[in-house]
């Protein structure tokens, strides 16, 4: 009797332990799951990247005008100035436009930063695509250096009709690892993970 009970305990304990281990894995799996979910639905405001070929397939919609507002902020740990060179633009969906931001390093040594984009309203982010953006790679500024940072974007004509205004916002964060390397080797143009 006792051994039978011990056997059934052992089987149950093994199953429950596996359940706990799987849930631990699930905790980590939530990270890629959320990322995929957000990319599909666009709800975290991250913008898409498209190639020049993709643009050809989008038809121009000359009758529709969408206002794009630009916004730029820096994380408090990053001693940079960062602002858009134009505050808003009137654009036609399906046409490529170019805009730029200006960044200036107020710090005393070279710093590498990463820009994280965000689009409001979030549902517009699926239709806001860029062919070129300073946010795709890490950006390095020497001490006292300022430079214009360009981006090329196109709004998909499939943008829902009720959206007339879109705000594109960037936040620049310090990239600690690459800033440290930049000051050690004084090498330029490292790829980032934007």
């Amino acid at each position, binding site marked *: 009797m006792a051994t039978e009970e011990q056997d059934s305990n052992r089987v149950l304990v093994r199953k429950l332990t596996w359940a*706990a281990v799987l849930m631990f894995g699930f905790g980590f799996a939530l990270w890629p799951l959320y990322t995929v979910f957000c990319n599909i639905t666009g*709800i975290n405001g991250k913008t898409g990247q498209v190639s020049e070929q993709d643009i050809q397939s989008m038809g121009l919609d000359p009758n529709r005008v969408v206002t794009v507002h630009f916004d730029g902020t820096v994380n408090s740990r990053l001693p940079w100035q960062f602002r858009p060179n134009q505050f808003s633009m009137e654009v036609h969906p399906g046409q490529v436009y170019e805009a730029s931001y200006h960044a200036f390093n107020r710090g005393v040594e070279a710093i590498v930063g990463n820009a994280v984009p965000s689009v409001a309203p979030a549902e517009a982010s699926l239709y806001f695509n860029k062919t070129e953006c300073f946010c795709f790679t890490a950006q390095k500024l020497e001490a006292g250096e300022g430079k214009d940072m360009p981006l090329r974007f196109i709004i998909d004509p499939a943008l829902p009709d009720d959206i007339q205004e879109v705000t594109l916002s960037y936040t620049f*964060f310090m990239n600690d690892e690459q800033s440290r390397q930049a000051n050690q080797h004084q090498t330029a143009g490292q790829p980032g993970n934007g």
Partner: protein
Amino acid sequence: MSSVAHAEGHDHKPEGFLDRWLFTTNHKDIGTLYLVFSLTMFIIGGAMAMVIRAELFMPGMQLVDPAFFNQMTTMHALIMVFGAVMPAFVGLANWMIPMMVGAPDMALPRMNNWSFWILPFAFTMLLSTLFMDGGAPAAGWTLYPPLVLQGGNSFAFAIFAVHLLGISSIMGAINIIATILNMRAPGMNLLNMPLFVWTWLITAFLLIAVMPVLAGGVTMLLTDKFFGTSFFNAAGGGDPVMYQHIFWFFGHPEVYIMILPAFGVVSEILPTFSRKPLFGYTSMVYASASIAFLSFIVWSHHMFTVGMPLGGELFFMYATMVIAVPTGVKIFNWVATMWKGAMTFETPMLFAVGFVIMFTIGGFSGLMLAIAPADFQYHDTYFVVAHFHYVLVTGAVYAIMAGVYYWLPKWTGHMYDERLGKIHFWWSTIAVNVLFFPQHFLGLAGMPRRIPDYSVQFAEFNMISSIGGFAFGLAQIFFVYIVWKTVKGGKPAEARAWEGAKGLEWTVPSPAPHHTFETPPEIKPDMIAHPSNAH
């Protein structure tokens, strides 16, 4: 009953102190250890609450510096949640579940010892952070990045403490499930089990499902801080809001982990002192299971203000409100149990009735918070503090107190002093409402939580709240005295300490012998509370 007489005859406990407590595999001794540990943590966490209320007694900075104040709010929550409430329920489970289902002990007695003895080490580590450079974690018990990562390196101790607590809880949960599923006496079918056993079975599954997710989340915090990963670091492509999703995927089931066993305790006590069977036993079981299921799909109501799309806000708002349905089923069943019963109001009953009334108040303020558009006003204010203290103090803690008074005669063999018990109840109940009710008004007026100083318009209510807080703290010292007095002596308790009590635990003598049900009891319908639900 023959098995009981047998057990009584050979009631050999280990002789030495270490053998009895450190190496014990006895479910009753481990239950006692859990309960004593929980009471100790309740006093420590309570002392931190006193520091918080003392600082908030008047506007301006009087007693502590803001960094220490933040450590107090964070540690108070961590200790009360993981050190006081959860171990108290595990202690009650250890003591009562084997006796309630007619088992000789827990299914895995040595693992049981291990699950308990991890806890003192975990809390030594957690509390030691108070004395380290940089101090204890101070970003709130939810440990949100990036703020929590900006503290000192003592953070690693807090993370490992949380890991240990998780391991302890998971082992305890596995043990409880194995005991309930494999160790029931013949004739004790699942739908004959007392509701306390049912709610704990469901709670144990919740623990196994979500404690590992918390462990994963805090491990990501650990690697973000010390090993250069970027799970929650926006500069490296991560997302701080992701942590909130992972945390609350654990955090919401966690609040039901703390309240479901309380539902079970109250469902044992109300029938006893109403001298009527529990109304709607089966619906209580299904309601508990529904609450557990729903707890997995409502987590984002803790983060309505992060900027979710409208569809998300609506989904989480309605899903949250749906929980009011099974919870309402429970409340109405408890009221129906008391309806036209021959009620008497001994201390356990007072605490249980107090639970039903005040938990409902906490539930209603929870419904208010569930309304997404209104939550933008309430979010991170004292209204939230008032809400979760009504459900956790007058909810979970009141149920624990009720359970302690109810089963203390079974544990010690002595009746507690009824007069002192009643004084403790009324003292606590008046004090706790003076303490937390004004916090609703403070929150609605816009006072933010987790701040050491506030604008002068909040001064009166804060002073009233602090006075209630000190009175409530003193009442719990009085509670410790009552328990101590009962352990030392008192009127001898009968086997069935309450004449309306049903259940196998009342068929063994008081105090319960060291070993009970070494041979399974023969279950007769009049011995258990729910004999008619057998298949």
